[in-house]
């Protein structure tokens, strides 16, 4: 079963028929396993990793450290939910160390990100402070290297 999802994680466009060939699991069982994983939200979504800069689109990303006051009974979860419901918050993690929430904020311009942090994030009652780090360059995302990589330097025929 792990093989099915490993194949899918590598290439989400793979069809159940292709996965069946690759794993030796019958097509019907592959379909069933994928469906169940989707229902259980083990598979959350199928997405492409896109280098927007190559498509001429600007995107500004910032990693925002957020220090918060945990609340009685709900700990960090309630404030995390307040944050992750904003579509600008692309990823939200609870982290150990000097701050509590690590929030990856996306926007079209620096201004847009700055406004979101200063007008939406920072004023939240439980938020004690924020530190915003703008991302200058992406090297690797979800295991994919943005520039270079990939090229294999093998001779065309070897014994």
């Amino acid at each position: 079963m792990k093989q099915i999802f490993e194949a899918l994680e590598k290439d989400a466009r793979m069809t159940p028929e292709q996965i069946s060939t690759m794993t030796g699991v019958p097509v019907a069982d592959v379909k069933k396993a994928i469906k169940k994983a989707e229902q259980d939200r083990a598979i959350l979504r199928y997405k492409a990793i896109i280098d927007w800069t190559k498509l001429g689109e600007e995107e500004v990303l910032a990693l925002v450290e957020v220090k918060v006051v945990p609340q009685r009974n709900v700990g960090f979860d309630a404030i995390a939910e307040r944050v992750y419901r904003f579509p600008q918050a692309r990823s939200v993690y609870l982290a150990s160390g000097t701050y509590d929430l690590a929030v990856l904020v996306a926007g079209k311009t620096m201004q847009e990100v700055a406004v979101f942090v200063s007008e939406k994030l920072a004023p939240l009652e439980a938020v004690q402070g924020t530190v915003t780090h703008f991302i200058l360059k992406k090297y690797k995302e979800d295991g994919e290297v943005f520039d270079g990589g990939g090229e294999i330097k093998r001779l065309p025929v070897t014994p």
Partner: protein
Amino acid sequence: MSKSKSSHIKVSQSCISERASTLPPSGIRKFFDLLSSIEGVISLGIGEPDFVTPWHICEAAIYSLEKGYTMYTSNKGTPELRAELARHLESRFSLTYDPDDEILITVGVSEGLDLAMRAILNPGDEVIMPDPCYVAYPASVSLSGGTPVLVPTTEEDNFEITADDIELRITRKTKAILIGYPCNPTGAVLSKEEPTQIAELAKRHNLLVISDEVYGRLVYGTEHTCLATLPGMRERTILLNGFSKAYAMTGWRIGYAAGNEEIIGAMTKIHQYTMLCASTMGQMAALEALKADDSEVDAMVRDYDRRRRVMVKGFRDIGLSCFEPKGAFYAFPSIKITGMTSEEFAEKLLMEEKVAVVPGSAFGQCGEGYIRCCYATSLPEIEEALKRMGKFIKRHRKT
């Protein structure tokens, strides 16, 4: 790279030793030259992983250079690598080798094979091996003055060498059996019973066994049996292995030989005069490879397995009968329905469809009628190659 004709020094035939001049040229080399002149070729003719060496291994080698490990090592290889190998063989196969006297680090399995032959063969001694087999097996025996004796293996018998067939060819001059399973070029592995039978035979006739297990980690849905683990075999087996295939480290050229003290001692003597030691940087990298857990190797194996299934099914779908390879990263489909020889097939396929495969005949007479196709190639390339080959078969199919 290529020199102009005029810069060649004319060497008369008589300058070359009989041994070198009678050695047949590698069937692969010829093909390589043809291929280099064509663009847009998808090559299934490659004999190495398409993964780059895992970064933690490269990083360890870089670090060793920064620390100044640029000198010779002990002839036998660094004590740390030999000790780690001894631990590895113990934990993986419950085999105990003394790292001081029973393990030798070589420049790939290729050097180990050469050393083994030089260490054990007297002129005229015979070494029995399967046909088809890796291109260097017969050559290494001939170069050491021995005579290769080939045992035909067939698709019907899963390209497995059998003890009965070996026994038919044993003479007074037989010194050793040389086997390499999982097999390059067929992808065959030995079944559960065969190694035991071969071991019994070797003991009965007092033969050595040279076992090239470089593809031992790359098996699918089956277990690899290390020949030396069978009762009484540790003493008479020269176990050859290396880092090239399992850890995607072909270019580092690090292998090893493990066996009894007498044989490893003789091999070490030759190695110290001819090679001195394997590259220090490569040994540092190999040490790191062994120390890490198996997760990266396991992930590569699962990845090969998925592509293996795609390729085998693909061949069958286009009408080629294809034995199911259970090891290494090769499929070995039969091309007999085209009526062509493997060489004709490979050449025509390259010219007409720009797909490179290796003619099975490069690996021995019994490889005639087959082609070796490597599935350590990206999935889109495998699929495109299968599509092109499908068109080719449609045009040239005779039966």
